[in-house]
């Protein structure tokens, strides 16, 4: 009985949850005549790859640009964030609490509220409308998040190990690289995965820092809303292609992403 109610709840809500993804996938395989006549729930009778290939080929540049922005931003932020987390772990003082509060505020205050200064700043660097401007903006926004996440993950590293390395005469950087980083592996992966998905799906930062639609996939996907009008197969193809990288990461490394979410909310415990 107890399992039955639970299963029914899961199945009913689960179906509601599946509809958007189902619609996205089948819509991408429809041909023009079906798009104009069939409802979006009905799978295609003659699935065709033409639309996917056509949108895919126009999305190569945005995809490459997004990779250039997202991968370095996630790794640089996580590496620098781990360094600060290590310093927090080693150092006990009141300053630490103040810095952590600054970092927490920088993490949680909606970044959309700094659009004016951010855009003026990136312009003044001469990086408006470049992938580098978006990359720098991501790094500025993500280092505080990465530091906070890694600080929480770091709190589970046993201090005895660090003390043992210290007694052996290892420098701080050696301790960090040889002792702490290997233990932090899963936390490090969680932070990188979390930031890759966040940056890949970000729409607002490229929207204010870039002209046109070629320098981030979400912008490119957005551009199809205006130009495809009634042809949802094009919009869905573009959206599916843009969603595949984060979806694949989510399916294969979901537990790392979830640990990132859980840690940001519950603080690791």
């Amino acid at each position, binding site marked *: 009985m107890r*399992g039955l109610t*639970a*299963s029914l709840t*899961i199945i009913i*809500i689960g179906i509601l949850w599946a*509809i*958007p993804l189902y619609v996205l996938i089948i*819509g991408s395989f429809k041909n023009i005549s079906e798009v104009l006549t069939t409802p*979006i*729930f009905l799978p295609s009778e003659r699935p065709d790859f033409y639309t996917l290939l056509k949108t895919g080929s126009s999305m190569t540049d945005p995809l490459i640009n997004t990779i250039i922005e997202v991968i370095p931003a996630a790794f640089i932020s996580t590496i*620098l*964030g781990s360094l*600060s987390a290590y*310093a*927090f*772990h*080693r*150092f*006990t003082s009141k300053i630490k609490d103040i810095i*952590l509060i*600054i970092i*927490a*505020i*920088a993490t*949680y*205050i*909606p970044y*959309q*509220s700094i*659009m*004016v*200064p951010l855009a003026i*700043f990136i312009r003044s660097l001469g990086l408006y409308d470049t992938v580098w401007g978006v990359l720098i903006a991501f790094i500025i926004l993500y*280092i*505080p998040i990465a*530091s*906070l996440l890694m*600080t929480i993950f770091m709190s589970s590293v046993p*201090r005895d190990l660090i003390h043992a390395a210290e007694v052996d005469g290892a420098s*701080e950087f050696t301790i960090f690289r040889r002792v702490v980083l290997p233990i932090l592996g899963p936390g490090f992966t969680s932070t990188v995965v979390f930031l890759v*998905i966040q940056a890949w*799906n*970000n*729409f607002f930062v490229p929207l*204010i820092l870039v002209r046109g639609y070629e320098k981030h*996939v*979400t912008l490119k*996907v957005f551009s199809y*809303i205006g130009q495809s009008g009634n042809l*949802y197969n094009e919009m869905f193809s573009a*959206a599916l292609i*843009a969603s595949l990288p984060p979806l694949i990461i*989510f399916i294969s490394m979901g537990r790392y992403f*979830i640990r990132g*979410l*859980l840690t940001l*909310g*519950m*603080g*690791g415990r």
Partner: protein
Amino acid sequence: MRKGAFLRLKEFFLFISPALVTGIVLLYFIYWNMYLSLTDYSPLNPSLSIVGFSTYEKVFKDPDFISSLIRTIIWAGLLVFSGNILGILIASAIFNLGGQRLRNILTAYFIYPLSLSLVTSGIIWRWLFDNDRGINVIFRRIGLPGILWLDGSNAFWSIALVSIWVYSGLGALFYLAMFYNINKEIIESAQVDGAGALRIMMQIVIPNSKQAFIISTIFYTLFTIQMFDLPYSILFINPFTSTMVMYTYIKFAATYFAVAAASAMSIVFISALIVIPYAMYGLKKWIVRA
């Protein structure tokens, strides 16, 4: 102690500098925002002299701003209410199913909307709300009247529904994490006493998960304050679904920078009311003292 205190402090600041610098840059941006909001700056009027609160006065007298502020508050209420209820429902159902592996897969399943970009979700739902090819087709087939999902003021409720679909899984995750923390012996002894699953959930498990309620509420509110991508990709700029970030963006795109900054400062102010207490509270949990 192997090293002098000074050296340790120097190393500490070296390691910490990236986080400290970006943290300060972001706070400086907020300060800059505040400064701009006290001027009348725009490319047409490139003067950075302080005009006091007159820009704020302008913003708070603008009916578009007021309606976007009220809409954001109602939206937050809707998401907090429905997101918590759905979160509890999903989490309770998963909690009552056997097998940790199945539970983990189901948890991930309900979170998948968070791995899609909001623009993608927006495009999908734009079509689900379509009158000729969307949900209405199913509604009409089973004899229900179609709903004009995106017409006029209906659009706000429809897009709020989409946001509930996107974010409820996160609440479920927070509740589940708390459910797993509850002492199993208490649950088992209640089972021995003959309490049913529903009673155990209502009287033991859910009341012991207040922390998940607080955190879900904080996150739902912050997500609502940031709302932009979803309404923008479903209906672009629309008087019925404009949010505070959208209002700010319109003023920014029209290069009314001082007005945009003043509007942005109200976003900062409202979120600070939530973020600062949360950060103080989190500080105790985030780091383990030696």
